């Protein structure tokens, strides 16, 4: 016992000494203004002057919970509690289940997700942010009962090294329950440092590295071991890009990505890849932006074989007046079975469009998405959205059963949001989802489905 206490005391002393040492650095700035007063009032005790100085300095510290003035916004520390809640009815709440069959299970879905964000701009050049968000979602119906918990921790540090150079790191850590597997959790850690530099007026560069670690609890209770894939992976990627403003309204961005993903428990899916790409942005007037890219993705699998695909996409973003925005995007991408892109979205739960089974080492996905928003005024927002996804697979990329799984899915819907106060808004939405064709029923992420969902929610954000 004594052996444990001694080091603990030593560390406590180190902590106290560390805080005291750091506090010494703060003292000169706290008492700098009191220098003249010290010479005039010799009778004051040192301790009383220290307390006065400390109290004066405390007055300059902003209350981090208070609403800040426009001049303090973005430059003073702030704590922002936030709460997102919603509930709705889904006519087919089990669309994510592989063996759901043709029997749809209607149910009520609800989600509540409180969190807090700490924003600390340390200096004019450095900005830091830390966010924790917890989410609980539940689905309850006559034939279905599911609960999921998610913890999400995000952090950002950004530093302006000079007028032309900025660098930053963001980190995201999530622990979440596996859907349909109560008590089993996965974790995903993503860290992404980036540096950007501007050369003159027309050339910008960006270099980023990303590391991901996904720990998969795996389907341990599956009786047929031949269908089990364990998707724990480590992922490293480096991407570099140069953006050149060819003309006032046209910029070109050549980009190169190098990527390695290792699956220690399912080696057949491990690969490295390269992806050169050329992107362009063209401003068609001040209200319309056209984007496009064309490139090549090459994957070399550790086991054997490779995948080579042309990758391309196009998009348009248009504003009609100041109130109406419309965006349309199309992309052909090369994806992994488990697309981790959802983790950094506004909502840390994937959508139905992002689910595939795990049997494939690569998927080719064509995706069309469109969004329309009409800001009637600062209180009323109407929006419509639609997403269509066409998945193409090859038999040779199925590491379990050597058959294809070409899924075609869609979601369309509308939403109305009303801002009750500066901090509180309410919303009402409807969504229709459908799977057009789910391929062979022996090897699908889901059977075909159709669902209608009506939901209402509240968003509280300080």
């Amino acid at each position, binding site marked *: 016992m004594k052996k444990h206490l001694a080091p603990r005391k030593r560390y406590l002393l180190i902590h106290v000494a560390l805080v005291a040492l750091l506090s010494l650095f703060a003292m000169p700035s706290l008492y700098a203004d009191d220098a003249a007063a010290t010479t005039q009032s010799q009778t004051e005790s040192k301790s009383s002057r220290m307390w006065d100085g400390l109290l004066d300095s405390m007055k300059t510290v902003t209350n981090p919970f208070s609403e800040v003035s426009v001049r303090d916004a973005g430059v003073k520390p702030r704590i922002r509690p936030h709460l997102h809640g919603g509930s709705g009815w889904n006519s087919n709440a089990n669309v994510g289940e592989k063996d759901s069959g043709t029997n749809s299970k209607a149910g009520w879905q609800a989600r509540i997700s409180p969190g807090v964000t700490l924003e600390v701009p340390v200096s004019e050049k450095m900005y830091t942010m830390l966010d924790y968000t917890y989410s609980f979602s539940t689905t309850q119906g006559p034939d279905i009962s599911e609960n999921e918990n998610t913890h999400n921790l995000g952090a950002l540090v950004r530093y302006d090294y000079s007028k032309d150079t900025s660098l930053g790191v963001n980190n995201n850590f999530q622990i979440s329950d596996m859907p349909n597997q109560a008590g089993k959790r996965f974790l995903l850690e993503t860290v*992404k440092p980036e540096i950007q530099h501007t050369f003159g007026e027309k050339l910008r560069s960006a270099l980023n590295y990303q590391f991901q670690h996904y720990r998969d609890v795996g389907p341990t209770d599956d009786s047929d071991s031949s269908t089990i894939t364990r998707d724990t992976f480590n992922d490293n990627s480096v991407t570099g890009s140069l953006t050149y403003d060819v003309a006032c309204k046209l910029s070109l961005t050549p980009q190169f990505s190098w990527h390695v993903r290792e699956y220690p428990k399912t080696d057949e899916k491990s690969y490295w890849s390269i992806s050169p790409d050329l992107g362009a942005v063209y401003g068609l007037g001040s209200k319309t932006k056209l984007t496009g890219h064309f490139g090549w993705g090459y994957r070399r699998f550790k086991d054997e074989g490779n995948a080579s695909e042309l990758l391309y996409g196009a998009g348009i973003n248009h504003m009609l007046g100041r109130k109406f925005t419309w965006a349309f995007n199309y992309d052909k991408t090369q994806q992994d079975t488990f697309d981790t892109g959802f983790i950094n979205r506004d909502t840390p739960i994937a959508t139905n469009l992002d689910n595939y089974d795990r049997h494939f080492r690569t998927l080719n996905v064509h995706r069309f998405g469109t969004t329309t928003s009409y*800001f009637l005024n600062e209180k009323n927002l109407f929006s419509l959205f639609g997403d269509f996804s066409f998945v193409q697979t090859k038999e040779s990329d199925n590491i379990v059963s050597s058959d294809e799984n070409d899924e075609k899915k869609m979601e369309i819907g509308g939403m109305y949001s009303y801002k009750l106060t500066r901090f509180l808004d309410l919303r009402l939405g409807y969504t229709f989802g459908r799977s057009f064709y789910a391929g062979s029923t022996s090897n699908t992420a889901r059977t075909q489905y159709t669902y209608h969902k009506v939901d209402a929610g509240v968003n509280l954000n300080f």
Partner: protein
Amino acid sequence: MKRNLLTVLLVTLFAFAFILNPLAHAELKEGMSQGEFAIWLVKAVGAMYKLPPGANAQDAVDFLTNLGLVPDGDWQVDGIVDKQFLISFLNLSQEEADALLKDPEGFDKLLAKVRELLQSRFDDARQGVFRVQSASGSVPA
């Protein structure tokens, strides 16, 4: 022990951030560049995490454009910010615009209005309302 040390270091760092924060001040004034203004605006509504970690002014401009915040004549990263530039984001009556142009504190008042406008749009966007989500099926089974 390492965890304790880490905790103390974090607490100390945040305490210092609050104490030293008076050093943090943005040059919010007429004549600042539109690029600086775009980054300030994104910080002011707490949306920095939506940009790439090493984001530059162009990233901030792209984010604002996607939310429909585009001034008359489009963004010019090196262009200057003045009252007329801020008015171009807002739907103001001619009388109100004229009064703010003459008001010595008009620049701050316009800054506040533009920030409010972005906050209202960003709050709506951060709900993820443009994409439906399901309680089940987050990860392939």
